[in-house]
């Protein structure tokens, strides 16, 4: 028989995997709404995905997204405070987001059909 602790552990594992899997999708979706700098993006992500995310882990992902051309950036001097690095979704990023969205919809529909029997 599976104990409560095992169940919690399995759920937690699944939740983390799911979060890792949808992180890219969520970052693209947020940047599709508006350009954002690191802190604002991470705050928005934490709000949507739960507060237990180590904020620093998003920066390597953002760098990878820049490197693969789905996101661009520019540094802006602010009137007060330090300069901010603003990230924008690129055309390739939009295309990827569209495909992700379509796939997500089909998975979601399939899941709904399964649950409805």
């Amino acid at each position: 028989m599976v104990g409560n602790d095992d169940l919690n552990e399995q759920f937690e594992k699944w939740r983390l995997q799911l979060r890792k899997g949808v992180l890219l999708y969520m970052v693209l979706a947020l940047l599709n709404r508006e350009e954002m700098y690191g802190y604002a993006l991470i705050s928005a992500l934490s709000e949507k995905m739960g507060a237990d995310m180590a904020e620093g882990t998003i920066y390597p992902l953002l760098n990878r997204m820049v490197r693969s051309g789905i996101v661009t950036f520019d540094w802006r001097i602010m009137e007060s405070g330090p300069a901010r690095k603003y990230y924008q979704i690129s055309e390739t990023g939009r295309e990827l987001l569209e495909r992700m969205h379509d796939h997500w919809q089909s998975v979601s529909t399939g899941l709904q059909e399964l649950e409805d029997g």
Partner: protein
Amino acid sequence: MGDAENTTFTQNEAQTTWSEYMRNVEGLCGSLGERQKADILAELKAHLLESYIQLDEGDEASRLSAAIAKLGEPEDFVPHWVEERLLEGAQPGSSTRNLYYLLRSNAFKGVQQFAFSLIVGFGYMMTFYFFIMAVMKVFFPENVGLHLTPSGIPFLGYVDADEFREVLGYWLIPIGLATAISLQLFLNYLVGRWVTHFRR
């Protein structure tokens, strides 16, 4: 004062925490060039300050510690970030130094990675060798080339002996350059794919 110590807090404890954190980040960025290092430091600095400002309860030191706790310890994310920046070294036209550090850091991650770094490192040396041979052919047309030894073994390089027979002539220049470029592009592609695969 370096970048790590540029921000002023009125409390010594907060100033020390800030300086230590940034020094730690700088240390982990050691394999990057100055511009890339400054880029990471500037982004982290902006993040921490913004987070610090948003946390309006407590004294400077406790607010800064809370902001750092939310961001995470540098060891937990900066090495991945640095690796991402180093991967830019695998793009055509970018720094050879980055590529060297990328292969070096990859080599210490396991037997397979070590073998990969060794093979790819050798591949890059071959790329350089083909390029140099193509260039040297212009200056030493009689001595540089693809030669056959008396026993028929091919040898690419500089020779000063009559018993070797040169087979490519001036064709070595376009063939050498094309081989160097193709090999370079292939290795860049391989490095990008392989390191990304092992980072997951």
